[in-house]
């Protein structure tokens, strides 16, 4: 169905009783041209771009639970394109441009809200680093503004400006950054992809790969039977190593837990997304009024989708340093998601050494903002067998050749990225 002001009016006049479900819950066919493993944002976006941009409509998305039940529904919904290294800068801006037209493309309200992302700086050295990042963004055609203290005070008068240890000196602002409604992104891609004939198959866990005599992947074994495939793409985030293992591959990835938090609803306070530069704390305010915030990953390998108290304490300390008044706001909810932490902190979108199997992984804790861009370039790779120019550096073999994309310069220690 197509959503418009008229469909809304019709539904309103009939008491909102006649809304139809927005996408088809399909049963698996015997064979597809492309099978995508993983019904999160990236998998569904890939399917939609395959169908809409590359004309491949005989596509299935297999999801072991329900769509959006993994990291797509567990993030802090931030979108931005403020990356500094070749490879990342262009890719994340491609993704940002796709966010800007997403609702029109999908005919679905994903509540993309470009209310700005500001990274605060607290020292002269950090100001210089942010100025450099901002300049990198601007010479690549991305918006960035370096704000001084007066401008930050005007924008966010409620911060603690008397913090002697971590004084707020200013911030790097990307006005086009902001947030989007994460579940609606999943449903929007499902809605649009399903409309073009893509089969979205839930409760369908991949349990193995079907290989021909040459080792080429020709399908998948699933909890709902065998499904043949011309090509198989995996977009399974924290489960990447487990799925790759079924094809005999070891990946430069560790799975780690990242927690996120929501406070009780308060009146409008925080204008956009804000990050604390002297610790690791990022926060925005949802339309319902809750403060949505997070910080570091817990730091140990985990598949448990829940974290522990030391990081919770650290995150809340970061928040308190910036806004002492939130100490009286109660925490409403807290959860964890499993991040596919790569060895250089950047993603992998590439063919694998196994013929017919393609990988989209290593998003660390930056996967949500990449959703449309990731789907677009992964669809390009699956359709054309050559990488999209904006994703050509996200190679699986870069760890062997040394062409790492290490934004933080941390080296091969995934829990520090």
């Amino acid at each position, binding site marked *: 169905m197509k959503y418009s002001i008229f469909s809304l009016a019709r539904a309103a006049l009939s008491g909102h009783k006649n809304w139809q479900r927005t996408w088809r819950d399909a049963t698996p066919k015997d064979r597809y041209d492309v099978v995508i493993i993983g019904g999160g944002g990236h998998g569904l976006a890939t399917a939609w771009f395959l169908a809409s941009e590359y004309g491949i409509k005989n596509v299935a998305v297999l999801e072991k639970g329900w769509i959006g039940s993994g990291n797509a529904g567990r993030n802090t919904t931030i979108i931005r394109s403020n990356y500094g290294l070749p490879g990342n800068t262009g890719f994340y801006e491609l993704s940002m441009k796709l966010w800007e037209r997403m609702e029109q493309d999908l005919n679905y309200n994903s509540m993309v809200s470009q209310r700005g992302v500001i990274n605060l700086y607290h020292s002269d050295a950090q100001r210089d680093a942010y100025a450099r990042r901002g300049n990198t963004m601007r010479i690549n055609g991305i918006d960035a503004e370096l704000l001084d203290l007066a401008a930050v005070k005007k924008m966010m008068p409620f911060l603690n400006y008397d913090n002697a240890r971590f004084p707020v000196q200013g911030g790097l602002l990307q006005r086009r950054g902001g947030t989007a409604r994460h579940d609606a992104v999943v449903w929007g891609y499902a809605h649009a992809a399903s409309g073009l004939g893509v089969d979205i198959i839930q409760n369908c866990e991949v349990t193995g790969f079907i290989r021909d005599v040459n080792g080429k992947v020709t399908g998948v074994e699933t909890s709902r039977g065998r499904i043949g495939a011309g090509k198989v793409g995996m977009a399974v985030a924290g489960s990447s190593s487990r799925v790759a293992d079924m094809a005999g591959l*070891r990946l430069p990835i560790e799975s780690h837990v990242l927690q996120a938090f929501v406070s009780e609803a308060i009146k409008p306070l925080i204008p956009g997304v804000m990050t604390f530069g002297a610790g690791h704390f990022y926060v925005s305010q949802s339309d319902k009024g809750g403060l949505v915030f997070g910080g570091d990953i817990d730091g140990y390998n985990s598949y448990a989708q829940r974290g*522990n108290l030391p990081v919770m304490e650290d995150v809340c300390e970061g928040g308190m340093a910036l806004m002492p008044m939130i100490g009286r706001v109660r925490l409403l909810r807290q959860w964890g998601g499993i991040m596919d932490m790569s060895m250089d902190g950047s993603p992998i979108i590439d063919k694998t050494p196994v013929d017919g199997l393609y990988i989209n992984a290593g998003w660390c804790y930056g996967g949500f903002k990449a959703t449309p861009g990731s789907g677009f370039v992964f669809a390009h790779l699956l359709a054309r067998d050559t990488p999209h120019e904006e994703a050509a550096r996200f190679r699986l073999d870069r760890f*062997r050749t040394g062409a790492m994309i290490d934004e933080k310069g941390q080296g091969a220690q995934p829990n520090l990225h």
Partner: protein
Amino acid sequence: MRITCPFCGERELGEFTYLGDAKPVRPAADAGEDAVYDYVYLRDNIAGVMSENWYHGGGCRAWLKVTRNTLTHEISAVEPAAGAGAAKVGA
């Protein structure tokens, strides 16, 4: 998650720092590029029981070998890692 340090007893997680999987072993100097690539970058990334290196920086500052389930966070064994600390307790 609390870790029972063999030297200090049961302590809260915040006292410890994680290094990672204890399985990879540094290859010999003449082992070749593939072995080094494997050691530095590739991981089994086990979903289940894993042997790991932890550092008790907020306590005795010993390296520990912790056997932990990555699906449940359940810790089944904590031993001193090989080295001076282990020698002290005869492990």
